[in-house]
């Protein structure tokens, strides 16, 4: 009935009005549930619902049951703002979102202005996957918390690994032509120049976002450049088609990627038959020798047909519970203060902390390769039979980057 009520209160404003009693803690999940981005949004939604069930089984947060309110933003920033308004109307004080930095930027901006204009009704925005560095730098906000490592932090971790890998000599950068691709590319250039000046950047390509059906010309360029390593932030179709075209043309290089683990990524790698040639940088992988996270992974896979894409979502949910306990309240302002600077034992093991200066979470980062498995790797991905193998672990303190954030705290 809730959904109907909410829609009715919106569509037929006659029925709207009073907010409902607060015996639940509502978290507005604003991500694409229809259209092109829906496959990713749906996985995120089910992950959060699974996490809510976990919290509720332990008695909820501060005695309140957690409820995930799904809101479809169709990956459109304007639509996200409407959904956020809608969520707030129905009593939501926490919203979470991850797909698309454009959406995250708009939401962070919206929440900041909303809180400024509606004191006493503050709303917090938990970002679990939008990685544009600007959100915790120039455009940082007190009301925004990010659990995913931003793209610069990931590049810091990746280049720290590349620093120790002498076999890398010629690097080719290929990225999607939008802000994320741009930041991957510029971070890679500046960090590699600082850490491994001997590495040659033999190519630096930006291609249009989700518009290329044939990557053969790009592969021809990579091949001509003599690269041994390709670094790419590509995701979705742009990732899958890139790898397929590479395999078709017989290109033999190592791939360092951000989103090889995304939906369809493992399938594409298997189809391209790039056994342990594709590496991903992530805050966790299923095949880590860490019994609690393996148990969680098993339980999730038993219920749904996907693996845990978002270890950071687990951290987000669990830290919310701890912060609320610490603040003895679910009031967003108090929870926000409790979250600032909090240290936390992360899902995959190891220390993480929420930096007070910019609300960026720092955690151990893993480099893993995808391919055939040994008995040390119990989990495969997307029914391919292949799985992730740990290559290197970068500790949280080795991923710390300075921030330009000048946080404005509420007085």
């Amino acid at each position, binding site marked *: 009935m809730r959904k109907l009520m909410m829609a009715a209160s919106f569509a037929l404003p006659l029925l709207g009005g009073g907010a409902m009693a607060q015996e639940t803690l509502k978290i507005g999940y604003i991500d694409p549930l229809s259209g092109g981005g829906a496959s990713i949004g749906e996985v995120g939604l089910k992950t959060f619902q699974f996490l809510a069930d976990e919290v509720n089984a332990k008695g909820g947060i501060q005695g309140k049951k957690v409820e995930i309110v799904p809101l479809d933003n169709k990956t459109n920033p304007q639509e996200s703002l409407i959904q956020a308004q809608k969520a707030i109307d129905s009593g939501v004080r926490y919203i979470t979102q991850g797909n698309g930095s454009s959406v995250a930027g708009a939401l962070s901006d919206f929440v900041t202005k909303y809180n400024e204009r509606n004191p006493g009704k503050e709303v917090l925005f938990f970002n679990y996957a939008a990685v544009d560095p600007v959100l915790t730098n120039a455009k940082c906000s007190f009301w925004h918390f990010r659990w995913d490592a931003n793209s610069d932090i990931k590049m810091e971790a990746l280049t720290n690994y590349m620093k120790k890998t002498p076999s890398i000599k010629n690097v080719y950068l290929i990225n999607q032509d939008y802000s994320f691709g741009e930041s991957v590319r510029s971070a890679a250039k500046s960090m590699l120049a600082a850490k491994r000046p001997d590495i040659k950047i033999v190519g630096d390509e930006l291609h249009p976002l989700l518009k290329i059906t044939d990557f053969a010309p790009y592969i021809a360029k990579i091949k001509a450049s003599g690269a041994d390593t390709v670094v790419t932030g590509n995701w979705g179709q742009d990732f899958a088609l890139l790898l397929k075209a590479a395999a078709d043309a017989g290109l033999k290089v190592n791939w360092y990627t951000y989103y090889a683990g995304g939906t369809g990524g493992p*399938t594409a790698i298997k189809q391209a038959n790039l056994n342990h040639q594709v590496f991903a940088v992530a805050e966790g992988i299923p095949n880590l020798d860490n019994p609690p996270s393996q148990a969680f992974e098993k339980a999730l896979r038993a219920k749904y047909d996907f693996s845990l894409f978002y270890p950071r979502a687990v951290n987000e949910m669990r830290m919310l519970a701890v912060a609320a306990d610490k603040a003895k309240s679910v009031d967003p302002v108090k929870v926000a203060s409790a979250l600032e600077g909090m240290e936390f034992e992360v899902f995959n093991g190891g220390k993480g902390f929420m930096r007070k200066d910019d609300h960026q979470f720092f955690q151990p980062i893993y480099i893993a390769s995808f391919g055939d498995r040994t008995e040390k790797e119990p989990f495969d991905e997307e029914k391919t039979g292949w799985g992730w193998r740990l290559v290197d672990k970068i500790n949280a303190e080795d991923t710390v980057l300075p921030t330009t954030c000048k946080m404005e705290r509420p007085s």
Partner: protein
Amino acid sequence: MVRPEKSGRTILLNASGAAMLELIVISTLNGILFGMLLFLMASGLTVIFSMLGVLNFAHASFYMLGAFFGFQISRWFGFWTALLIAPLLAGAIGVAVERFGLRPVHRNGHVAELLFTFGLAFVIEEIVQIIWGKSPVDFRIPSSLDFPAFTIFSTNYPAYKMFMLLVSIAIFAALLIVLKKTRIGLIVQAALTHPHMVAHLGHNVGRIFMLVFGVGTALAAVAGVIAGPALVTQSNMAGLLGPILFVVVVVGGLGSLPGAFVASLLIGLIQTFAVSMNGSLSGAFGPLSPAYASTWLADIWGVTIAQVAPIVPYVLLVLILIFRPMGLLGTRET
């Protein structure tokens, strides 16, 4: 490019010449392959759009249906059966759509038809999502075609791409023969160039339209079955294709199959060559003076030809419509 070798210096020149040659050969090959893929997808639309005048926005959806039917049938009976059955299924759906959807809408004009296909595209996408889910499915190239056909300049060209090329050419040839040599083809061709005349000739225009729509959607499905394994078979593949197919049809010229063929090749080649070029204004004229470095002028200055490659077809579309409204080989105005 080839110069007589006389001294060590010319050998050096030849080395860069060889790289140039390699780039040209490979880009041409890639361009032809991509162009033929475009033609494969657009051939059905040419027939429908030219003859019925219907801006079929659901064409890409039939292409997607073809891919998913192909995926499902190849699981059960293998790829080759799928290549035969899936287009027939999609074509049958196309026939039904024409008979029970488009025909009643037809008398309300082109905008109504267009909106009908708009709505249809939504419905097909959602039905595909309900049946096959939102994630990509694992649609593989048949193992009998999964090997490199030949290697040029150490770049492999897989047999499957050659197969795609052959199918495109075969469809082109078959359509041309049907149009030129058969009775029904002649009627259809007459309808392509003079859509209002055929009704006066006493032919059952309704049946012809139904047939044309069925064939057009079946061709889209053939493209789907063939492109599915090579690209990503996912419920958003129709949306991602975008309006590029309309560009092919309009640039080629309404009512002209050879036009669509030429336009596909042209767009394929232009795009591929554009991608292989790194030139930009800053490359040509040197970097912008620092005074303008952070203005919008810097954006234009720094854009490479490769970056704008996907816009090129639309520039072509606008220019063609302004200066040659009948398209490259068209017989009547758009």
